[in-house]
């Protein structure tokens, strides 16, 4: 019954009970004259325009993926035909077999799994204690040290690859999985995000635990981690996608195939002479499909992870 003028409602449509402002598009203002003559026509035009633009978007964003899958299942003559063929008659796996014949993808996939898994695990072990200390302790130099952590986020990683390569060469770390894991486990970004979450945990919970003589380890494990689960999943998803897809560092910090990962191996098909695009696209699917499956299942979570961290 309080008829004050629209209190600051939350961005959800909760406060839309009042009159015409329920949905954004049709303000009753400028096109009132044209609206009277053809409201239905105008509405139809809008709906059709929406459908056309929507189809166009699907074509633009999904089209290239479709083209990759299509090519991967075509014969070379189908793929190279003019005019192009937009369908296949039969599903064949020849191109995948041919791709495996040329490049030992099993080896590179294993490396990808080791590096990605190692980075995820290592990052968890390193950033959780660090974020906990930054969030929950007062100690001398804390703010300066946290500033250092934030500053490392600003450094474009690609600028440090030469010095680190030289360092690895001296330490004999070249061509090890460890060399592709170590630099990424102390993510400044992860520490920042997790610290924010830990800071929001109510003091009373921790005080109660301390009264029960809980160790810091117990506090982290029993209170902090369960409450920070969404943040940890967010950091984990971003790290997983970033590490699995990373091309630059496995390329520049290796001199042999020992530790190289899939993104380095797949473009090799393209560099081979006399190879049909069908085989390149088949190899490419090895890299794309696992991540696309993860995306299909965790779409909402991945999108909110990326957009949330983008907005900060």
């Amino acid at each position, binding site marked *: 019954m309080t008829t004050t003028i*629209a209190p*600051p*409602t939350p961005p959800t449509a909760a406060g*839309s009970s009042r009159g015409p402002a329920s*949905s*954004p598009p049709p*303000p009753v203002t400028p096109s009132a004259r044209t609206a009277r003559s053809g409201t239905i026509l105008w509405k139809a035009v809008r709906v059709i325009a929406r459908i056309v633009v929507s189809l166009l*978007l699907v074509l633009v*964003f*999904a089209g*290239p*993926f479709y*083209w990759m899958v299509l*090519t991967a299942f075509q014969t070379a003559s189908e793929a190279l035909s*003019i005019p*192009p063929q937009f369908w296949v008659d039969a599903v064949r796996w020849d191109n995948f077999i041919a791709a495996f014949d040329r490049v030992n993808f099993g080896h590179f996939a294993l490396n990808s799994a080791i590096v990605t898994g190692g980075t995820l695990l290592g990052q968890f072990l*390193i950033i959780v*204690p*660090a974020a*906990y*200390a*930054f969030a929950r*302790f007062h*100690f001398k130099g804390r703010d300066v040290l946290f500033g250092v*952590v934030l500053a490392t986020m600003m450094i*474009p*990683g*690609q*600028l*440090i690859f*030469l*010095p*680190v*390569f*030289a*360092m690895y060469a001296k330490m004999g770390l070249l061509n090890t999985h460890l060399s592709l894991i*170590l630099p990424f486990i*102390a993510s400044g970004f992860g520490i920042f995000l997790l610290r924010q979450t830990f800071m929001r945990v109510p003091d009373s919970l921790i005080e109660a635990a301390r009264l029960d003589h809980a160790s*810091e380890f117990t506090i982290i494990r029993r209170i902090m981690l369960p409450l920070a689960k969404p943040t940890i999943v967010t950091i984990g998803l971003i790290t997983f*996608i970033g590490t*699995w*897809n990373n*091309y*630059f560092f496995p*390329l520049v910090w290796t001199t042999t195939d020992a530790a190289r990962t899939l*993104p380095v191996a*797949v*473009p090799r098909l393209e560099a081979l002479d006399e190879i049909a695009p069908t085989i*390149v*696209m088949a190899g490419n699917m090895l890299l*794309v499909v696992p*991540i*696309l499956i993860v995306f299909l299942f965790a779409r909402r979570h991945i*999108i909110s992870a*990326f*957009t*949330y961290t*983008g*907005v*900060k």
Partner: protein
Amino acid sequence: MKTSLLRDRRLLPYALIAPALVILAVFYLYPIGYNAVLSVFSWDLRGPMKFVGFGNFAELFTDPDFGKVIQNTLVYMGMEVSLVMIFGLILALFLNRQGWLSEFLQGVSFAPNVIALVSVSLIFVWLMDDDIGLFNQILSAVGLEPVGWLSDTEVALFSLVLVSVWKSVGLNALIILSALQSIPRYLFEAADLDNASAWTRFRKITIPMISPTLFFLVLVNVIGSFQAFDTINVMTQGGPQSSTNTLIFAVYREGFEYYRVGYAAAIAVVLMVLVGLITVLYFRAFQKRVHYR
């Protein structure tokens, strides 16, 4: 020993942050300094290092190709950032409504963002093939001249921009979208009471309210554009005729293909200064303008 350290409440936090700080220092802070040191030496990664003072920089700035590299980097940045922002904003406005269709389109336009840039590059190499690529086949089907997407020195850099925009526009749109959806509804209701036109509402409410997000995205995209490497290495190798050779690719090529580590380090220093300079100037220029009006 270890347990006593972990029990001491004053030392405990230092023990907790030490592993992270050591790694950050070794892999980020030290290399920045070491890179600066390398830039005044001549070194092939194997033999002894030879001090050359500012010789690398002198060579860099007298090399006519280097001007071209800087130009490519800046042109790439300008095109990439403006296209991503314009299309990102348009896409966000289009997706700004409830319903399954919008939800579905958000997923579709975001999908390229989770795919490896290497994979995306390989797909587009195939699509942009001069003779049998789908793009040119479509062009000739509708009676247009084929385009040398990756073989024409005038076009190749733009083709790389297109690929990058295709990959990242969805992410940018969704970040803008979440900013759009956090604009308080009563602002628009008030504008409706004033009979404001759609354009006025957009200009006076929407843009000012999302300007912090736009500001942030431009900066992220600018810094990201300097790091474009995967597309260049997979699609053009810096060619044709160095038309897609950028700073980061030049660092890689000088260092890892020609083994001129000092020279490459000098280019990295130039790149670092450029990124720092643009960031500072950008903050200066926009500090006063970006705020909620």
